[in-house]
């Protein structure tokens, strides 16, 4: 790649950031068309640049490193503003700019006529810029800057319709929950910096592997601290409860931030810093089990949701759980591949759901949608393709290949229990998305279409259907004879995937899981609806589904264990109990003064009486 173009790497994050600046400063003076042009144009140009760099990397596999300047120099610690484009960050950048561009285009139609059009695009552009900084950063501190930047944009965009107090509460909840993970992350980063005195990621990883041995205290502590940050960002147990509430934001925001990109930052962080996690096998095991638990709990919750966006939110938690499970067994490439595929199909699902609910007048309740095949064909086919990929329909969807890769890797490492959890998760995934599709898109029409959607929203759906169904060709299973482009691309960064697939049994069962899930749900909902109705009306089912509906009661638990005691403590402390001795001293002196000053009444005869009485007392004391 020639030098002139290589020097343009900084433009990739700078273009969206510049767009955000322009829209933020001059947005009020621009009309909606110009806002959309600036926003889509900046991300589109950035995407084109990423394609350029990507094709060059594909040919020569030489990572690009561009150091722009030294950020600051604090006693020898010199974090740099430096960008690195290698296989891993290239994949992320492709997803962010590609899906990001499509979602910008979609937003220009979806948000048409909304108040704050420029504000929306300014924040969306800022998000893309910050996310690109996060994935391209060569320096851990710069990565953290992007990390907090995307968190800020997530907060701003969840609360975009800020006039509704509930949206503001959801935004604050997202901020606070992710911050609960970010605090340990900061501590971990500072620990790492102070220990090695450098902030560049490759140098840190090199020194960590060179100086630390397996399972000693320091790497374990560090891995746990960094894991807390990843868990908060990626909405994994036990910090997962913010994601379903984050659906208060506009649907394209949910598609971009809370499905395709930001929430996968935790997975990226662990993959990027994997040499450190390898030093702590116990923590890796914890990651795998956290992922498996999140996968199953969220999948079961998704099974009973009635709000289409909440189904997809729980589904995102569940799919991120899949990625965490893959990370936990050391299948870095499989996790990243699932991240890659998930970004496309989950964005497609959200966008299709957005088209459907927008045309029905912002109707998000599955039970009041229905009958959309002919009335809203774009949404219908888009959602169908996304569902097929999410359910991992064998061989015809990309989701099958990525999920199968994870299951194969887990199988190969002999983690039977984990494999079974993953298998069950795949079955449940197929079941809940089939249920959402059958209830929400098939059946009788319940609500009239009140708004027509336009090409700006249909085009992204059409484009996203392609990778949703076909991205599997980048990484075909062993034995299918295909090239393993994805593994080759990330091979310099992530250790290669082991070169053997499932055993015969495992492969068969893995193919069976989605079919079983789809078949069972279809049977219960369409062939024998009476059964499921009877089951639904029973008391046990009511209690169980209410429990699952509220995400296994995590919110209520945190409310009782954390929020309420904290509020009570705060209420008690608001009266400054520690100040009481000192304010009491003041109050006491004041009261004493009041008492004594009342004796100074100006009555001469009282004074005379007091003098006489005092003298009498003195005399009585003196005289024997």
């Amino acid at each position: 790649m020639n030098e002139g173009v290589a020097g343009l790497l900084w433009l990739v994050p700078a273009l969206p950031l510049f767009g955000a600046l322009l829209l933020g400063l001059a947005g009020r003076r621009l009309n909606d068309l110009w806002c959309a042009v600036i926003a889509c144009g900046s991300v589109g140009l950035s995407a084109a640049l990423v394609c350029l760099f990507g094709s060059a990397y594909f040919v020569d596999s030489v990572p690009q490193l561009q150091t722009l300047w030294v950020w600051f120099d604090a006693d020898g610690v010199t974090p740099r503003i430096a960008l690195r484009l290698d296989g891993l960050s290239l994949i992320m950048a492709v997803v962010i700019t590609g899906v990001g561009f499509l979602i910008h285009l979609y937003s220009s139609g979806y948000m048409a006529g909304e108040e704050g059009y420029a504000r929306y695009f300014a924040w969306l552009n800022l998000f893309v810029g910050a996310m690109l900084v996060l994935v391209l950063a060569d320096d851990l501190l710069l990565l953290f800057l992007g990390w907090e930047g995307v968190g800020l944009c997530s907060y701003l965009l969840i609360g975009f319709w800020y006039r509704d107090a509930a949206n503001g509460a959801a935004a604050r909840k997202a901020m606070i929950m992710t911050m609960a993970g970010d605090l340990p992350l900061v501590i971990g980063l500072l620990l790492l910096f102070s220990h090695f005195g450098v902030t560049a990621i490759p140098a840190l990883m090199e020194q960590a592997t060179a100086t630390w041995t397996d399972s000693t205290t320091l790497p374990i502590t560090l891995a746990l601290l960094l894991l807390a940050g990843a868990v908060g960002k990626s909405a994994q147990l036990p910090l997962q409860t913010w994601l379903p509430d984050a659906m208060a934001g506009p649907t394209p925001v949910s598609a971009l931030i809370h499905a395709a990109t930001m929430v996968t930052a935790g997975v990226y962080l662990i993959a990027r810093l994997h040499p450190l996690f390898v030093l702590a096998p116990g923590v890796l095991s914890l990651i795998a089990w956290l992922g498996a638990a999140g996968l199953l709990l969220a999948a079961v919750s998704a099974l009973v949701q009635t709000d289409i966006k909440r189904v997809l939110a729980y589904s995102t938690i569940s799919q991120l759980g899949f990625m965490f499970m893959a990370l936990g067994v050391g299948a870095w490439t499989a996790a990243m591949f699932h991240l890659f595929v998930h970004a496309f199909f989950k964005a497609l699902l959200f966008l299709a759901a957005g088209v459907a609910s927008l045309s029905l007048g912002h109707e998000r309740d599955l039970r009041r949608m229905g009958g959309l095949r002919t009335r809203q064909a774009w949404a219908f086919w888009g959602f169908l393709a996304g569902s097929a990929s999410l359910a991992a329909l064998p061989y015809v969807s990309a989701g099958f290949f990525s999920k199968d890769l994870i299951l194969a890797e887990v199988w190969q490492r002999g983690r039977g229990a984990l494999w079974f959890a993953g298998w069950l998760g795949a079955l449940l995934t197929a079941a809940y998305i089939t249920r959402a599709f059958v209830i929400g898109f098939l059946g009788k029409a319940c609500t009239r279409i009140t708004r027509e959607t336009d090409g700006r929203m249909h085009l992204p759906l059409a484009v996203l259907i392609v990778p949703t169904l076909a991205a599997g060709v980048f990484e075909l299973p062993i034995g299918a004879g295909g090239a393993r482009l994805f593994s080759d691309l990330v091979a310099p960064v992530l250790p290669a995937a082991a070169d053997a697939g499932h055993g015969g049994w495992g492969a068969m069962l893995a193919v069976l899981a989605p079919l079983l899930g789809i078949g069972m749900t279809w049977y219960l909902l369409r062939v024998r609806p009476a059964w499921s109705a009877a089951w639904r009306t029973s008391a046990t089912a009511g209690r169980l589904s209410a429990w699952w509906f509220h995400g296994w009661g995590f919110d209520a638990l945190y409310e009782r264990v954390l929020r309420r005691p904290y509020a009570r403590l705060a209420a008690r402390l608001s009266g400054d109990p520690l100040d009481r001795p000192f304010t009491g001293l003041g109050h006491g002196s004041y009261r004493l003064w009041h008492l004594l000053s009342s004796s100074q009444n100006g009555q001469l005869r009282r004074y005379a009486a007091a003098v006489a009485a005092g003298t009498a007392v003195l005399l009585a004391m003196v005289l024997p």
Partner: protein
Amino acid sequence: MTATPVLLTLAAALLVVGIAGVLARRNLMFMLISVEVLFNAAALAFIAAGAHWAQPDGQIMFLLIISVSGAEAAVALALMLRIERHFGTLDIDAARTLRD
């Protein structure tokens, strides 16, 4: 010899009368007179004590008390005039502006 208890009893009676006058009367004039009675009670006690022990000190104290009471009367009468001018009355309970 036998006069001493009588004199002291008289002095005590004068003292009680004086104190009662100071505490009970509201007219400043009468209060001053009561104070003079008090002086005389003290003076009588000194005289009695001096006579009892055949010492001249009692009479010296008597002269001192007489002169002090004269000076006191001069100052007090001047104050009384001012109070009468200022408040328009000699009622001591009315003159209570000097307080907290």
